[in-house]
């Protein structure tokens, strides 16, 4: 730990282990993400990168180790954990917009229910956010009436409405048709440019090169490489990373 840095890291994981039954999915993970950093997590499927992302807001509980967000250890299930999750935005691969609510209601629900904002104020903020992600005209539609790209942008707006300290993206473009990937990445790139702390699990190498400060490469539940995007893409150190990049880049 850097003793000179007084501010705690936004995310700190210390010797984290997790099992799914006999499967050891996270092996002794230790890492820190300072405020404002954009981290891209890469790795073959089954490497544990999604699980890693989901442990940070305790959607997946861990077996041993420690996770802190902004200097606070993750609380156990309950009100306190809900409060912490409110400060950690999360975007899912399959969007998970609330199917029975309009886009606007999706964005205002948590600010009203959790932050107790007046409805009018929450709506105003929500409309601003929808404008930011470019779907103002979809505000009164239901999720099923939107394209995948629009839904994912709405989901980002929903997460931002809570003014989170950090954003987690769990393969945000993997379920999208190719022509819609860019619109979502654009929103994410803008967000990164504004200084948001982000942890992004993705296969989008372009985004990693362009927007990330740091690349973490995972394989078999371990962090294999932790470097800058330049270093990682031009001179990967491990055989597994070379192998992975070889497969990705030839495709």
């Amino acid at each position, binding site marked *: 730990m850097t003793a000179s840095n007084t501010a705690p890291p936004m995310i700190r994981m210390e010797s984290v282990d997790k099992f799914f039954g006999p499967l050891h999915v996270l092996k002794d993970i230790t890492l820190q993400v300072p405020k404002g950093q954009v981290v891209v997590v890469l790795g073959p499927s089954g490497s544990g990168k999604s699980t890693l992302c989901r442990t940070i807001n305790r959607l997946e509980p861990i077996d041993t180790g420690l996770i802190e967000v902004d200097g606070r250890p993750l609380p156990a*299930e309950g009100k306190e954990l809900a409060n912490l*999750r409110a400060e950690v935005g999360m975007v*899912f691969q399959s969007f998970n917009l609330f199917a029975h609510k309009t886009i606007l209601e999706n964005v205002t629900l948590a600010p009203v229910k959790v932050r107790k904002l007046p409805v009018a104020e929450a709506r105003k903020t929500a409309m601003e956010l929808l404008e930011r992600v470019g779907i103002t005209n979809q505000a009164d539609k239901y999720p099923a009436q939107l394209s995948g790209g629009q839904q994912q942008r709405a989901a980002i707006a929903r997460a931002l409405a809570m003014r989170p300290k950090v954003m987690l993206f769990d393969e945000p473009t993997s379920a999208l048709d190719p022509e819609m990937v860019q619109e979502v990445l654009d929103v994410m790139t803008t967000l990164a440019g504004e200084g948001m702390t982000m942890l992004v699990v993705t296969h989008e190498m372009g985004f990693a090169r362009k927007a990330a400060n740091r690349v973490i490469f995972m394989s078999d539940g371990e962090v294999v490489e932790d470097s800058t995007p330049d270093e990682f893409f031009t001179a990967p150190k491990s055989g597994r990373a070379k192998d992975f990049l070889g497969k990705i880049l030839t495709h």
Partner: protein
Amino acid sequence: MNVIFDNFSLYRDGFLQTLKICAFAAIGSLVLGTLIAGFRVSPVPPLRWVGTSWVNVFRNCPLTVVLFFCAFGLPEIGVNGAYFWFGVTGLVLYTSAFVCEAVRSGINSVPAGQAEAARAVGLTFTQSLSTVVLPQALRTVVPPLGSVIIAMIKNSAIVGAFGVGGDLFAVGDTLTSSRGEAVLPVLIGVVLGYLVITIPGGLALGWLERKVAIAR
């Protein structure tokens, strides 16, 4: 059939009594059953344990035994009260187990991602259940819940035999045994009384089912 018209006021009172029992029992068991379903899917193990035991006890006990415990067991331990409320309590306890299971199956039909997203934006378990999961579960829950409630209405006939009295079925008993009317026409009147409750109930459920289906 004259027996029905001659004793119309008796039938009417019986009908109203049955309706009263059913109204209280339906509200009680829907609220309690949903609460127990919440227990069963809760992240807190003791609550899950309570929920599971509740369902196992009341779903597997014959209604008459549950009613027996309410009407005779409670006074035995010093709880005295009106038999009407003992009967309603018994019917609520019994029906709540079935409501719970219907609601739980509805909860399970909602994709897990919905609850995850709700938790991820900071909703507590109760909030995510009440604002995200249950409203979506409603659609799949209405038909089985309808069956549960209709079964409950018919079960209310048994409640009458536990000191409550005055319900439709008891009216049938009064007419046949103390007034010596023929059983069959009297029972036809009783059946009509139940149908007047259950058939509109079924229609209302059909309407509700269409309504919640459109609301998305």
